[in-house]
């Protein structure tokens, strides 16, 4: 990078806020998806909104693309640097600015760790509901970019449900406030558009979150089924009975083996393990738990256990949340996917995955958020064997195609990022993508914010979109046009 630009950046963030030596830059060459790597020109670590604005203004003036980065735990390459661009790390903007218990709001900077929000309000018995498996390390800013979910979003909703307002530095360096502490602020729901836009619309520098009161009780049930088909039927039975559990998670035999090897969660050895969590008032939960128990038994559950203590419950969840990393115990390498299917398509999609697995000679472990049909197939492979990585990648994309055919989505919570942008053209028609691009152009006409992600083909933003017809009122000077 041109030394005068580095000097400009240094004058904004100071020596400590600028990384430009190649050795140190390697830390930022990828995120949680490690098979894509790009070395950024520089990494900047601002400590305030004003610094973010100043950096982005330089980028805007010099046409330098930038990629905002939180903790770098993303699994789709969303924080992958772009060629000739800089990385804006928000890790040092990590203050919890305000805790407002009576209004159930918390205001944070983007670098605050997800779990720290809950830790901060747990004495008052509140929690921050979105709980991605990486919650002890991932940042709220990253969660906002990806619209992160987690096991409990079945009942509580996703990041977007819990973000009420945002302070955003737009790609030209200007500052806007979207949404607010109160609901239904006048105008378009641009906070709703920004959440989940994967860093392509600007940089969030302050986030207003909603927190939730802890329920009176939480009960977690583990049911062991001969296969995922019976477990899936039990999930459908629970939904059909009119219940909305806080979470419903499923693991197949390979995933159970991995979790056992890694954290000794004491899971029963079976073909399909279902975890059902209910929360709410004690009397309500107990009445419903009896019903869940009956539904599991009538669908062939061989063994049913209810966690008897908070420690037991924590262990059950530890196994589930560690499942991705645990696969490392049974395979040197793996690719995790994030497709979503309508819940009812589960048996058919599972048998297709099994068929693909056999055909390609690659094992696939399955962990899913069964309540909302979010599959996390883990394709196991060994990088040292020539051709296996390519085969594994191809297989994981075939699974996403199955999801699209079943009426689902290519991503439920990990985002499109770099990894799945080619799949966007399979999920959406050209006019759908073009319309999204028009929105992008409204925020970022020069396409500087994370420019190469999400969309399969870049598109230039014309300054005058559509056909511009002068209205008679304008010619008469009676109306203004913007």
């Amino acid at each position: 990078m041109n030394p005068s630009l580095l000097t400009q950046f240094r004058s904004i963030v100071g020596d400590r806020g600028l990384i430009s030596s190649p050795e140190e830059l390697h830390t930022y060459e990828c995120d949680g998806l490690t098979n894509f790597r790009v070395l950024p020109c520089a990494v900047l670590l601002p400590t305030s909104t004003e610094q973010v604005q100043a950096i982005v203004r330089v980028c805007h003036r010099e046409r330098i693309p930038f990629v905002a980065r939180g903790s770098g735990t993303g699994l789709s390459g969303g924080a992958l640097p772009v060629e000739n661009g800089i990385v804006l790390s928000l890790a040092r903007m990590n203050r919890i600015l305000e805790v407002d218990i009576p209004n159930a709001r918390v205001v944070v900077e983007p670098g605050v760790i997800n779990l720290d929000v809950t830790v901060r309000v747990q004495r008052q018995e509140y929690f921050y509901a979105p709980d991605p498996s990486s919650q002890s390390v991932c940042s709220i800013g990253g969660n906002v970019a990806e619209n992160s979910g987690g096991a409990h979003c079945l009942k509580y909703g996703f990041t977007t449900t819990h973000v009420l307002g945002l302070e955003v530095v737009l790609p030209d360096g200007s500052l806007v406030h979207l949404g607010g502490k109160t609901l239904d602020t006048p105008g378009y729901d641009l906070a709703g558009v920004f959440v989940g836009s994967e860093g392509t619309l600007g940089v969030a520098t302050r986030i207003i979150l909603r927190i939730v009161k802890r329920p009176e009780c939480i009960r977690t049930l583990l049911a062991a089924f001969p296969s995922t088909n019976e477990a899936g039927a039990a999930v459908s039975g629970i939904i059909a009975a009119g219940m909305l559990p806080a979470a419903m998670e499923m693991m197949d035999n390979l995933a159970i083996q991995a979790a056992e090897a890694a954290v000794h969660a004491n899971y029963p050895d079976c073909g399909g393990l279902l975890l059902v969590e209910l929360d709410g008032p004690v009397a309500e939960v107990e009445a419903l738990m009896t019903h869940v128990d009956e539904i599991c038994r009538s669908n062939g559950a061989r063994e049913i256990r209810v966690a008897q203590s908070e420690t037991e419950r924590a262990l059950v969840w530890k196994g589930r949340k560690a499942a991705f990393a645990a696969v490392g115990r049974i395979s040197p390498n793996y690719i995790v996917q994030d497709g979503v299917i309508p819940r009812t398509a589960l048996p058919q999609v599972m048998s297709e995955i099994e068929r693909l697995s056999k055909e390609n000679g690659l094992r696939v472990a399955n962990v899913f958020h069964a309540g909302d049909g979010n599959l996390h197939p883990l394709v196991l492979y060994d990088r040292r064997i020539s051709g296996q990585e390519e085969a594994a990648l191809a297989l994981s994309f075939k699974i996403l195609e199955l999801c699209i055919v079943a009426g689902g989505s290519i991503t439920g919570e990990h985002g499109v990022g770099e990894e799945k942008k080619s799949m966007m053209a399979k999920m959406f028609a050209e006019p759908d993508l073009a319309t999204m691009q028009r929105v992008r152009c409204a925020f970022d006409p020069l396409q500087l914010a994370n420019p190469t992600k999400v969309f399969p083909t870049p598109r230039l933003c014309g300054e005058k979109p559509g056909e511009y017809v002068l209205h008679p009122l304008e010619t008469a000077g009676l109306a203004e046009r913007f």
Partner: protein
Amino acid sequence: MDAATQPQSTTLTRALHDQFVALLGPDQVRPTTPSDAVSAVQPQLVLEPVNEQQLADALRIANEGGLAVILRGGGTKLGWGNPTARADLILSTSRLNRVLEHAWADLTVTVEAGCTVQALQQTLAQHGQRLAIDPLWPEKATVGGILSTNDSGALRLRFGALRDLIIGVTIALPDGTLASSGGKVVKNVAGYDLPKLVTGALGTLGVITRAVFRLHPLPRKTCSFSIAVSNPDEAQKSVLAIQDSKLAHVALQSHFSVESTPTVDILFEGTEAGLDAQAAHLRSLCQSAKISDAPMSVWSARQYFWSFSDSAETVIAKISILPADLARTIELIRRSADSSHLHWQSLMYATGLGWLLLEGSADNFHGALTSLRSELEKMGGSLAVLYRPSNMPEFDAWGSPGNSLLLMKAVKSRLDPSHTLNPGRFLGGL
């Protein structure tokens, strides 16, 4: 209304008329009657396309012809927002009214925009499910209409707003594009969340032609209680104490008016055993207060605001505040209303959203609304006027747009550059 103040209307040429007839057929193009008037201007034609493609094509022709298009579903909230700047055509979704797919085992539904909320709910109820919202006039209001106006009621506390329930949308843009975003699954982060962009946009970005929603089971049992309190401070204390408790209520609202002491209503849903325990918990929480069973009709309270007797002497506004500013807000309402000699009542949900009814002489509304809006905006809140008498002095419906108006205008100009859709009705002339 005299010609000088009447919104401008572009002359709809014979050629354009013939294009609409050729596209839609003669039965779906009709001249308007006075009952089709929108903010006192009578557009020239009503178009009633029967499918999405027809709607998109008709919109494109109107856009190319420089016509101003007013969108209409059930026609229940056409007066919301500012009076339209122009109105040439009414594009009605009344014939796009099918429930396309109720995937009950997946708890989702795909429905066309012109389907009424009531018809949708009846279909969903066959499998014990619902769209968990309680909009105004469900027998007439359409899916597209409640989405465009972001109409929500008491159930929002537990189930969220429409933005939280919509998972997919198809919109027609003025250039004739038909675009979908989101999908049919609840969990989906592929691409931008355009369902949220068009929810609450008052039809100014595109025409919603279909929507996909996540559903909830119908409640097994419900029960409601009213808590009598002596003043707004006590009402606020009760509401905040309930919100801070472990009760699993689905709705919580309080009523205030000039002539009676406030009441707080709470709604529970669940199993019989669960409801009994909740009722006991509620009683122990509000020891000194008077608690009585409440009829389900208390949850339609906001609709009663609209059954006013004198349309020339009524204002209805939606207000938004922080929940802990409740008592202060009621005091501000009382002060503004008193100083302008207005009669008032208010219904506030625990979410901080609420409704205000003012009654009195049309000349007195302006001062009361201006001072109240200014106070609420200082507290980070807002006040939107949804109904006002036509003889009241001009008053912006939406209030301060904040610092994102330029960005909103940029979005608008990318999707509806010619201001074809509902011109002038939304915030800041969007």
